[in-house]
């Protein structure tokens, strides 16, 4: 008989419901408005490494959103003030112990804040669930140097590539800096992080995505981006948001050029977002947090399937 049973236990599902209600209570008490924006849109993301699922609605191609970011920024530009979203997001090709192609995302934007204020709020949300989790805050550069001896900003590409190749037990040729940095961070820096919540900020400028650029205290160009790691598992990614429409369009186009070079299908740029930025996105910081992963750490479970009511059957994906 086909195994029709849920993959999470009933106790886990009760804790899951409790977590969702605690998150809502946190933001309702902190002056952010819940917005349940659509998961379907005319465009996906241009990001080289995120593939949106596509479907057809009344014969027209629609993209399942990999994050509610563009809709939320349009709301901010329309005067919403600080907002949060708690719902589903979708990413094709992402399946594993820490990934599922549909997952629950908490994303929120604070108008008038920068990334450091937002990191502090993220820490207070996470530690409200488990006060025993310690919080540490580090610059990307410092963690990277401590784990590898290399400076992610100034080390020659050849050295970065050698480091990535030896960690991966395979040769990387001609790979751009960002790919090698990602690999080194995953294989060498993440395992070296302490338990608890670790906030990592001042990312290399080549990893800006939708963050503003700035300079760190050493004068290196950095992205005003941060990530949060909980018990060495990536939990959240945030930005002091880019608000300049010309720079946004330039990054979309750079992404599309990379997609084309990689043989991936093009994605239309979100003109609604660009128009909203033209009209004026207020200064804000935003962050997206994987709720399934937070639940895994809260309950001490090692596989995302254990916290999903119905995980995809084995054999579809590892």
């Amino acid at each position, binding site marked *: 008989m086909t195994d029709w049973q849920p993959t999470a236990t009933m106790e886990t599902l009760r804790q899951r419901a409790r977590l969702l209600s605690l998150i809502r209570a946190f933001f309702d008490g902190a002056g952010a408005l819940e917005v349940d924006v659509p998961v379907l849109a005319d465009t996906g993301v241009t*990001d080289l*490494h*995120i593939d949106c699922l596509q479907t057809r609605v009344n014969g027209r191609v629609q993209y399942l959103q990999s994050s509610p970011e563009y809709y939320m920024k349009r709301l901010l530009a329309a005067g919403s003030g600080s907002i949060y979203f708690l719902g589903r997001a979708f990413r094709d*090709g*992402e*399946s*594993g*112990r*820490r*990934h599922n192609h549909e997952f629950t995302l908490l994303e929120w934007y604070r108008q008038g804040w920068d990334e450091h204020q937002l990191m502090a709020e993220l820490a207070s949300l996470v530690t409200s669930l488990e006060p025993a989790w310690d919080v540490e805050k580090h610059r990307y550069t410092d963690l990277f140097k401590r784990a590898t001896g290399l400076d992610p900003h100034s080390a020659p590409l050849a050295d970065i590539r050698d480091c990535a190749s030896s*960690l*991966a*037990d*395979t040769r990387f040729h001609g790979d751009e800096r*960002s*790919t090698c*940095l*990602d*690999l080194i*961070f*995953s*294989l060498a820096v*993440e395992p070296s992080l302490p338990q608890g919540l670790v906030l990592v900020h001042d990312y290399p400028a080549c*990893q800006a*995505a939708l963050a503003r650029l700035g300079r760190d205290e050493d004068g290196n160009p950095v992205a005003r981006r941060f*990530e949060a790691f909980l018990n060495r598992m*990536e939990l959240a*990614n945030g930005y002091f948001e880019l608000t300049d429409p010309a720079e946004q369009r330039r990054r979309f186009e750079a992404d599309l050029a990379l997609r084309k070079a990689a043989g991936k299908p093009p994605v239309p740029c979100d003109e609604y977002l660009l128009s909203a930025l033209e009209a004026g996105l207020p200064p804000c910081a935003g962050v997206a947090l994987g709720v399934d992963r937070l639940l895994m750490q809260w309950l001490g479970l090692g596989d995302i399937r254990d916290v999903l009511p119905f995980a995809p059957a084995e*054999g579809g*994906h*590892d």
Partner: protein
Amino acid sequence: MANYSTNEFRSGLKVMLDGDPCSIVENEFVKPGKGQAFNRVRLRNLKTGRVWERTFKSGDSLEGADVTDLDMQYLYTDGEFWHFMEPDTFEQHQADKNTVGDAAQWLKEQDTVVVTLYNGAPLSVMPPNHVELEIVDTDPGLKGDTAQGGTKPATLATGAVVKVPLFLNIGDVVRVDTRTGEYLSRA
């Protein structure tokens, strides 16, 4: 052979890596931040038995390996080769010492074993988990010593030497776990 992309990697999938057939042991999807996704893969080299850990960019692919596991009957050895037969087709295969490896000490004629074929030729031989073999040499048994738990070495019909309880004698048949080389019981 077909090519397999990282999203088709499963444990047990046989692929070619650096010219050798390998079996995937574990495949972990790693996706840092906004970056390139990777697959951390552990593979067992089927020639050497060594386990490799390799990282692939998600979407990379490996050529499938023409590797199949078949149940075969062990026939005999002529000293140089060990001979096996497919029970359905009666097709015979011969494997050299290198291929048979440690399995040789557990092979009893007529037993069914798993022979792994690579491009149609034997690559490795896996004996049954449990075999029953006759003791051909050991010190004389000590009557009444069944409770003491002492052991002594015994040479079995296939040449394997295992530790057996003191009360067993030449001519007794014992069950042995081939994975650990340990005596299980009297057969």
